[in-house]
């Protein structure tokens, strides 16, 4: 971790610890995610990856340590505040708005960039009409990228599993983030779907000028696209480096193959 990367890091986590009662889920974790990176966070089941995501997005407050997003301290901020700053996420256990359509799901996420006040909507001002049209168009564009525009008016939960995961990414992008957190985006997908998704993620990063932090259980997937990988076990960082370095790291091999 050079000083240069720390200064320009989009996300900088410093000695973050999270305890639930007597259980330490995350222990003195530090991260430096440079702009434009595709950063992988891997580790065995129960290593604390999702907890880290929840800490970064404000679902939990760290017990100790700090989280800086583009220089702003976000530790302990509310999730919606953090999203407003430009951090978006998906969920490991898909959390779509089930009773709404695919299109509405994506439009909802654009709410945060709305400049209307409630009265605009109640009275139906030109600003309201204009923004509504704009939101719909943007949402359709996003759906097109994910090849979901054909099912825009279907119920979100009527989609097959893989498409629900893709819709979650589309929805996250609608908040116009600069940092995107993907929690096991390939879970439940077959190998071909996973490969396609990984290609798409790489493309999204370039197209939307994103920094992407990816949690994956599946090593192969991460190795394929991430430039930098951090390995977590029992809430601690056990290795950090390029995919090649990680693959050769004895501690990582031990964590994945050795017993507890």
């Amino acid at each position, binding site marked *: 971790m050079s000083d240069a990367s720390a200064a320009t890091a989009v996300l900088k986590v410093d000695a973050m610890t999270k305890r639930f009662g007597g259980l330490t889920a995350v222990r003195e974790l530090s991260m430096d995610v440079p702009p434009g990176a595709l950063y992988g966070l891997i580790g065995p089941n129960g290593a604390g990856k999702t907890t880290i995501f929840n800490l970064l997005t404000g679902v939990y407050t760290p017990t100790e340590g700090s989280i800086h997003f583009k220089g702003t301290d976000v530790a302990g901020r509310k999730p*919606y505040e953090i999203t407003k700053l430009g951090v978006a*996420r998906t969920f490991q256990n898909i959390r779509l*708005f089930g*009773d709404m359509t695919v299109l509405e799901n994506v439009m909802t996420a654009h*709410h945060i960039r709305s400049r209307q006040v409630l009265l605009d909507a109640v009275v139906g001002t030109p600003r309201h009409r204009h923004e509504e049209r704009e939101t719909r168009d943007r949402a359709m564009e996003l759906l097109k990228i994910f090849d979901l525009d054909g099912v825009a008016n*279907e119920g979100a*939960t009527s989609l097959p599993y893989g498409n629900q995961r893709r819709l979650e990414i589309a929805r996250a992008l609608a908040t116009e983030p600069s940092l995107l957190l993907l929690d096991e985006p390939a879970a439940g997908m077959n190998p071909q779907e996973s490969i396609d998704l990984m290609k798409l993620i790489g493309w999204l990063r370039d197209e939307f000028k994103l920094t992407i932090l990816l949690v994956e259980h599946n090593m192969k997937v991460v190795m394929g696209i991430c430039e930098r990988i951090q390995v977590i076990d029992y809430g601690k960082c056990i290795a950090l480096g390029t995919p090649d370095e990680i693959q050769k790291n004895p501690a990582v091999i031990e964590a994945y193959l050795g017993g507890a």
Partner: protein
Amino acid sequence: MSTTRKVLYFVVTIGVLLLLNQVFEHGVGDFQIRGYEARIVSLIGIAITLAVSLNLINGLAGQFSLGHAGFMAVGGYSATYVTVYHGQQIAGLIGSSLGEVAGAALVMPISLAVGAIAAAVAGLAVGVPSLRLKGDYLAIVTLGFGEIIRVIILNIPAVGGATGFTNTTPIANFFWIFAMAILTIVIVANIRSSTFGRALSAIREDEIAAEAMGINTTRYKVLAFVISAALAGVAGGLSGQLFANPLNPQNLNFVKSIEVIVMIVLGGIGSITGAVFGAATITILPEALRDVDRQFPGLRMVIYSLLLILLMIFRPQGLLGRKEFSVNWFRRRKAPLAPASTGGGADV
């Protein structure tokens, strides 16, 4: 809809309402509306305002409130209080500059505005602490607040206490009742189809995901709650100033809140059309069963409660589900939206 068109609709609506009001009060030639029917129509209008406003918080935002009667009471008593104790002053004050007719006519909207504001303030006071709770807990706390409001009113002699607010002037007429019902429908429908409506729906569907999408869930829940309370207050203000329909704390307990819930559940929770339909049905039903009641006293309420149970067992999504009435119904049959709770039922 363009602005000119909107103004046109507005003017036409006012005109039609005024015309109907005229028919309502004075009839056309031989056609006269009897007091009994007039009363039921008025009560339906008020019920529509109540049900549609409750639908905003219970149906759209998915926050189960059982305290609607409390806000109706706050608004109703405040509005009626304004008319009874300050009505003359207001009429005089406005009358001196705008003419006597305008002065008398404006007492009603002013009293309703006061009622709405009072109910909104009560809604804010109840909503801020309560809306941190969810589901059953929220239901019981709002019920509790409603009961507390009722007991407080019972202890205010100026508004009649336990005997009810009887010394009122019945100035609520067809025009105001249905103008407010339409206003409520327009407000709720416009919120529903806007980005704010989507935010509220998102909160209903998944609060954690909504928060992750940048929606300040607490703020929007409170906002919906306050608007809902204010509109309930308007309904209360109309109700309290209806002919021979005095506000009484005994009739504004949680059973009244439940009645409004039954209205929106019957029509289909979340559907505005459903709420209007439910409001009309639940108001008419006891009257329609009056003949039954004459032969078997009390039986109509038994039928009413049995219907509610059977509805829940056989059609829990209500008669309309989340569907709305729209002109498209006549043009072409669209594929139905995904079913409410079962999910995955839609054809792909």
